[in-house]
C-alpha cells in the first residue's frame, strides 16, 4: 500500500506537486497518468525518500521510506533507467545493490534471467540499448522480491517485444497480490495495463477512479456519419428516439471533419434514419470511448475551470464529473 497525503513539493518558486492525495492499494495496477511535467516523477521521488516533501507525506506501507526496516523487500522502483554507471557490468551493478540492501546474491542471477539479460550479465552497461537498460532497471526493482513496485515510464525505449513483456509483467505482479504503481504519459498504454487511474495535471489531482469509470464518465461512444445532406440528416436524427421515451436523448453535433457526431443512436439506427429520409451516407462508424478521449476532455474541463474560477482543483473535478 502506498499512501500520498496532502503532498506538496516546491522547488524554489515552482510547485511541482500541489496538495496531492491518493492511495495505491495492493492487488491491482494503478496507473499514474499525466502530461510531462505534471509531477509524476516528483511524487515517486518523494515516495522513495529521495526528495523531501514541502508539505504532507508520502508513505510506503504506512511509513516514510527512510523508516522502512528492509526497504528492498517492501518496495522496488525503476525511476530512471539511464541512472546507472556505464562502466559497470549489469551483474556488478545488481550485485552492489543486493549487497547494500541485504538481499541474497543468488537473486542477482535470478532477476537477470527473469528480465532476459542473463546473456549480457557480464557486459558493460555503457553498451546497452535503452531497452536493455529498462530491463536492467526492472531487474533492480525486483531484486528484493518486494511487496510494492513503482515504475516510472517503464515502456520508454522498449521495442514491441519489450512493451508486451512489461505489460505482462506488470499484470502478473499485480496478480500476485503486489502493489503496482506505474506512471506514463501514454494514455493508450495505461488503458492496456491499469485497473485504476490516478490522473494529475500541473501537480494537481484530476481523477482517482477505476479505469472503466473514467472512460465512462468522460467520454461516450458516438456514431460518426458523413453525408452531403448534413442539414437534413441532422434534423431527422434530432427527431429520432431509439426506443421510446425512456431511451437517452439523441444529441447531434458537427464533427471537426464535416461529419455529424451522434450520441444516443447506434450506427444501425443512424443508417435506418438516413435510409428513411433518403439521405446519402458516405461513411458510418462507431467512435469507441477511449482513455485518450476521456483524458483530453478531462484536461480541457480542468483548464476551463481553472481559467473560469479560482476554484480548488478537487471541487473543479467533482463539478466536471457532474457536468459530464
Amino acid at each position, binding site marked *: 500500500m502506498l499512501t500520498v497525503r496532502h503532498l506538496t513539493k516546491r522547488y524554489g518558486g515552482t510547485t511541482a506537486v500541489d496538495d496531492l492525495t491518493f492511495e495505491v492499494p495492493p492487488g491491482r495496477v494503478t496507473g499514474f497518468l499525466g502530461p510531462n511535467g505534471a509531477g509524476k516523477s516528483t511524487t515517486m*521521488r518523494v515516495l522513495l525518500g529521495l526528495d523531501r516533501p514541502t508539505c504532507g507525506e508520502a508513505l510506503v506501507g504506512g511509513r516514510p521510506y527512510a523508516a522502512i526496516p528492509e526497504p528492498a523487500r517492501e518496495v522496488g522502483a525503476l525511476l530512471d533507467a539511464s541512472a546507472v554507471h556505464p562502466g559497470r557490468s549489469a551483474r556488478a551493478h545488481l*550485485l552492489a545493490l543486493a549487497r547494500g*540492501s541485504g538481499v541474497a546474491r543468488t537473486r542477482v542471477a535470478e532477476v537477470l534471467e527473469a528480465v532476459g539479460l542473463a546473456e549480457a550479465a557480464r557486459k558493460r552497461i555503457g553498451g546497452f540499448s535503452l531497452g536493455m537498460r529498462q530491463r536492467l532497471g526492472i531487474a533492480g526493482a525486483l531484486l528484493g522480491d518486494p511487496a510494492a513496485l513503482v515504475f516510472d515510464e517503464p515502456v520508454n525505449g522498449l521495442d514491441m517485444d519489450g512493451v508486451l513483456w512489461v505489460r505482462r509483467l506488470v499484470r502478473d505482479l499485480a496478480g*500476485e497480490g503486489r502493489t503496482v504503481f506505474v506512471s506514463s504519459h501514454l494514455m493508450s498504454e495505461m488503458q492496456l495495463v491499469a485497473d485504476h487511474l490516478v490522473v494529475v495535471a500541473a501537480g494537481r489531482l484530476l481523477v482517482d477512479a477505476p479505469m472503466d469509470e473514467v472512460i465512462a464518465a468522460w467520454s461516450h461512444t458516438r456514431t460518426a456519419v458523413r453525408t452531403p445532406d448534413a442539414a437534413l440528416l441532422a434534423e431527422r436524427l434530432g427527431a429520432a428516439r431509439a426506443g421510446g421515451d425512456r431511451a437517452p436523448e439523441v444529441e447531434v453535433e458537427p464533427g471537426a471533419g464535416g461529419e455529424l457526431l451522434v450520441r444516443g443512436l447506434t450506427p444501425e439506427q443512424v443508417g435506418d434514419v438516413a435510409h428513411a429520409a433518403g439521405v446519402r451516407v458516405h461513411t458510418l462508424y462507431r467512435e469507441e470511448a477511449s482513455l485518450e478521449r476521456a483524458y483530453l476532455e478531462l484536461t480541457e474541463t480542468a483548464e476551463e475551470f481553472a481559467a473560469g474560477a479560482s476554484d480548488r482543483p478537487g471541487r473543479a473535478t467533482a463539478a466536471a464529473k457532474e457536468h459530464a
Partner: protein
Amino acid sequence: MIAASPPPARTAAHAPVPAPSTPRVLARALAMEWTKLASLRSTWWCLGLGAAGMAAFALLMGVSTADRFAEDPVAAGEFSYARLTSQGVFYLVQFAVLTLAALAATGEYATRAITTTLQAVPRRGVVLAARSAVAAGLAFAAGAGMTALGIGVLWGVVGSYAPLDAGYALGTVLGAGACMAVLAVLFVGLGTAMRGTAGTIGAGFLLLLGIPLVLQLSGLQELNDAAAYLPGAAAIEVYAAGDVGFYTAPHDGPINIVTVLGWAAAAQIAGYTELRVRDA
C-alpha cells in the same frame, strides 16, 4: 500438452521483519560501496597510474642519485629514502588518491545512480560513512603500497651506496598510507558537498598544491607559514617525519596530524550536511 496452471505466485506479503542494526546496515553499505568501486576500471587505472608514476619517479631519482654517489661516495651518508619517496607521494600519489576519492563521491551524481544507492540504503549518513571508509581503505593500501614500491625501486638503484633502515622505512610506508587514507576521507566529504567531479578535483588540486605554492611564492613569511596549515603540506610533514626536503612548516609534530584530521572532519561535516539537507 500445455500446462494450464499459472506460474506459482510468490508471496507478496512478507512477515514483518525486525529493523537491522546500524552495524549491520553499515556492513552492507561497505560491501555495496566496495563492490561499486572495485567494479569500475577507473579505480584500477587511478591506482595503476599512481604506482607507475611512483616507480618512474623513484627510478629517475635513484639513477641520478646513484651517479652523484659514484663520484662522491661521502654524500651517500646523508641520503634519505624517506625524503625522496615522500616527495613522490606529495607530487604524484596524493593526486591519484584525490581522483579516486573524487570519483567515488561524485560519480553517482554525474550518472544519477545516487538514486538507486539511496533506495538500497536510505540512511544517508551510513552511505557517506561507508563510501569514506572504502575510499580510505583503498587509499591506505595505495599510499602504503606505492611508498613501499618507491623505496624498493630506490633501494634497488642506490642500495649499494646507502643502506636502508627497514624500521624507518616502515614508518614512512605506514605514515603515507595513513595520510592518504585521511586525504581520501577529506575528498569524499568535499566531493559529496560539491557533487561535481571536475570541481572536486580542481578544488583538491588547489588545496594540495596550488594554494601552498602561491602562498610560498608571496615572499611574506606569514603567508609562507600559513601554507603549512593546508592538508597536503601538513600531511607530508607527517609521513616524511619532518624530513620533507623543501620548506613547509615552522612546526613539526602532532599539530600536523591535527591539521590533516581537521580538514577531513570539516569536509565530512560539509558533505554530510549537503547529503542530508539536499534532495538526492
